[in-house]
């Protein structure tokens, strides 16, 4: 490939799209939507290309680009992908592309909507692509503001107003990021005293030997920051309200990929740079993870609004990712990354289907529905696919993720793993009950006027549903890649002994 900056292009195409949309006039609705669709399609195609041309035998960072940016802070605009970031990059673009189609019916202020959406997608992509700590944080915070504006302008007010939901989400995430930023600055200054020159390169920082007490301190701050983003119990309260208030596309991107930045950050920055801190704090994270799985699962049982059910279920599923992370071994980390990918496509599909249904019926109450499979068989297929993936049915990509996590985690936390596995039963109860109440049962006359999804609405179903099944049937396409990435990372940080705190 030589010096062709393929990652930069993947990253910048949506920005160009957003700028182009900004200069169009508000009336050119079709043109705006096509611009958004085309720019996300190009990014998707490019990231698929990168995905298939990544050389797994060589592992490590590939397609590397680096331009010195701010010298006195040691910042460089550095991009690169490895086996951990690549699946998440692909996930971002799969969801980004589907999200554009899932919001095809937006009619008000189309221009602002799609330019903000494209900026949001860029921000998320940037965090997975960069290998520089400063740039990572920059992209991470870039996403927060477009989300706020999208929620307050296009969101829906049901149980809580959209203004409340938007502000809650924003403040939670920003306060989390304040902790993260303090940790990051402390890390930067410490590294500078050790190195003698400033550097923000994640690889360079990971090569340094920080004192253990400092690692514990810095990792705690990062765990708070990333944990909030990953909706770690008890910092999860923003997530269900936020998803419920947000427009479909934002819920898809937020639940699908944005949360995963938390998990990715824990692995790429927390574990990679501060391994001693990670192993010290890991048991606490494992215990909190059980809080996610069981507590959020229980709340799910009592929810009536479809978006809240998926919202809490996504909190609950993040518990699996966390326990996978907290076990800190190759298999469990593989599972955690796989689970992030799997949960991403699943929850995005779920939100897309709920969005379609809500757009037509103007209600999200489970009790209002029944027998929708009669009127809307295609929508029902999407719901079933997402629901069954959610409870980890073999044949879907989620099964691969969950199974791997449990195998890996059982080595370190027998009891906690068993409790976590029990969580699947809770998931099965609320998912099957919801699906049964909404889709099956006798035909209800009042929904006869609903049209099944068709045309552009089918795109999310085909793209995301396809990913769920392909990943489930041919897991090695993604799994081998993840394995090469995690393997390399663990190899670099050396042996890990969990514990110290208890």
């Amino acid at each position: 490939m030589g010096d062709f900056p393929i990652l930069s292009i993947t990253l910048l195409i949506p920005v160009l799209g957003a700028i182009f949309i900004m200069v169009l006039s508000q009336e050119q609705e079709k043109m705006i939507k096509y611009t958004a669709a085309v720019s996300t399609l190009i990014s998707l195609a490019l990231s698929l290309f990168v995905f298939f041309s990544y050389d797994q035998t060589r592992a490590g960072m590939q397609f590397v680009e680096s331009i010195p940016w701010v010298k006195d802070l040691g910042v460089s605009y550095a991009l690169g992908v490895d086996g951990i970031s690549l699946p998440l990059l692909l996930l971002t673009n799969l969801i980004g592309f589907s999200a554009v189609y899932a919001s095809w019916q937006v009619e008000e202020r189309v221009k602002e909507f799609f330019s903000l959406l494209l900026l949001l997608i860029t921000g998320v992509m940037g965090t997975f692509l960069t290998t520089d700590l400063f740039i990572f944080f920059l992209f991470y915070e870039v996403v927060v503001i477009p989300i706020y504006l999208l929620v307050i302008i296009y969101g829906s007010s049901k149980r809580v107003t959209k203004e409340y939901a938007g502000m809650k989400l924003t403040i939670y995430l920003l306060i989390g990021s304040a902790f993260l930023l303090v940790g990051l600055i402390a890390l930067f200054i410490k590294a500078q005293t050790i190195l003698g020159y400033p550097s923000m390169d994640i690889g360079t920082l990971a090569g340094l030997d920080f004192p253990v007490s400092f690692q514990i301190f810095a990792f705690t701050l990062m765990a708070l920051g990333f944990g909030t983003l990953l909706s770690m119990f008890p910092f999860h309260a923003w997530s269900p309200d936020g998803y419920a208030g947000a427009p479909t596309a934002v819920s898809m991107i937020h639940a699908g990929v944005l949360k995963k930045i938390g998990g990715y950050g824990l692995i790429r920055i927390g574990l990679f740079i501060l391994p001693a801190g990670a192993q010290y704090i890991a048991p606490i994270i494992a215990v909190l993870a059980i809080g996610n799985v069981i507590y959020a699962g229980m709340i799910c049982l009592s929810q009536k609004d479809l978006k809240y059910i998926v919202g809490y279920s996504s909190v609950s599923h993040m518990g699996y990712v966390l326990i996978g992370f907290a076990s800190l071994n190759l298999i469990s980390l593989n599972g955690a990354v796989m689970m992030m990918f799997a949960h991403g496509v699943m929850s995005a599909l779920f939100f897309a289907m709920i969005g379609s249904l809500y757009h037509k019926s103007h209600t999200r109450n489970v009790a209002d529905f029944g027998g929708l499979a009669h009127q809307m068989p295609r929508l029902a297929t999407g719901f079933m696919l997402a629901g069954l993936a959610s409870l980890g049915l073999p044949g879907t990509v989620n099964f691969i993720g969950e199974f791997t996590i449990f195998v890996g985690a059982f080595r370190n936390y027998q009891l906690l793993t068993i409790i976590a596995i029990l969580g699947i039963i809770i998931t099965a109860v609320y998912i099957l009950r919801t699906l049964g109440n909404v889709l099956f049962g006798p035909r209800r006359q009042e929904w006869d006027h609903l049209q099944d999804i068709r045309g552009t609405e089918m795109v999310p179903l085909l793209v995301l549903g396809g990913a769920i099944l392909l990943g489930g049937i041919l897991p090695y396409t993604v799994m081998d890649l993840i394995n090469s990435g995690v393997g390399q990372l663990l190899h670099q940080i050396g042996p890990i002994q969990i514990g110290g705190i208890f």
Partner: protein
Amino acid sequence: MSYGLLAPEILTACLGLIVLMVGLMLPQREKRAVGILAVFGLVIILVTVLLGFNREAVFFEGVYQIDIFGNFFKVLFLCAALLIFFMSSRYVEFFGQRKSEWYSFMIFATLGMMVMVSSGDLMTLYVGLELMTISFYILSAYLLNDGLSAEAGLKYLIMGALSSAVLLFGMSLIYAASGSTVFTEIYRALSVSYNTQPVLIAGIVLLIAGLGFKISAVPFHMWAPDIYQGAPTPVTAYLAVASKAAGFAALVRVFMVALPLNHFNWSLALAILAALTIVIGNLTALPQKNVKRLLAYSSIAQAGYILVGLVAANSYGLKGLLFYAMLYVFSNVGAFAVTTIVEVETGSTDLEAFNGLGKRAPMLAAVMTVCLLSLAGIPPLAGFAGKFYLFSGAVQAGYLWLAFIGLLMSMISVFYYLNVAKTMYIGKNEDSSAFSVSTTGRMALWICLLGTIFIGIYPGPLARAAEMAIELFL
């Protein structure tokens, strides 16, 4: 000693006088020409400063110093003055027949600041400060028919006089302890005597109080909200941006050059002040319903962030201080420019006046949102890079707790900044007519918007300039 290096100051003084006289001579209809004259004059002065940016000289045995640090701030004042002249091209109609004098007082205030940042001596510093402050007394009360404006002017006069007295007292005590008013001499005298004199500590504390008033640091901030709200909006903008920067420049020069840390740990004292300023400024901004008042409280909080740079007193911290002072010009003037235009159109600066601005004037709403988010420190806007420098400096100097407070509060500040954004984007307004913005106003908006984004995305050049400017302190 080459007096050519004093050209910026001399030219500014001449420009102020010329503008004043030309304004008196021109007939009423032709007064627009005064504004154009003032802008051209400032541009020429700006070019003069930039041409001699790297030149250094000491005048009158250290009493007056031309150096990169001073030039950096002169560029800052001139940019701010130009931007404010641009944005207020329609606002000056409110001043009626007195608009030519307004330009002239603004230029004199600029001259005062220029003298302040270049002074190497306590008395010169005081003279510059008074020239600036007295100009501002008049400027604050410039809306004659507006009770709030008159109140602002009077309040500023009383409070300002008080703080000047405190400052002078502090200076006299430092003179008593060291036997000199020249910064370098003070340093020399103080570093040979190792016993800490109570009189010196009292002097430093009073100095902090006097200058703390100018930068509106808590607990010397009480004047700011009323005066910011009452003064004409362009004056408020200049007061918030330039007079604050001048106060910081003076603080940095006095503390870094004249007062060694081993006598009295002023760094810790300032750290406590900075923390208080950040916390109280942000918390009191939360419930504000008037945008000018909100910006006043926010500017108190911003002063706290900038003060962190002086607390750190190392390379990152001081660089951050200069960097932040400069980006603050673009972000804050941008926010005030939008407020000014809204005030000209709707006659109010209440939050309700901003309802539906996102639909009526998308450009204004976009500039306001970007500038406010930059003040909140959201990347990739300029404010983030500035805070990163400031708090890196603080952590390096061992003030981790200060970085904690600062960053946490800056995230909380997002709440009130976003409140404005929310009003603009989802607020309802019966009046949906579009805004008419003058060409120069539009130019100011674009400069602020692009400046804020450019500095945020590519902070290198500005950081380099700031680094050159602080070399003499390290």
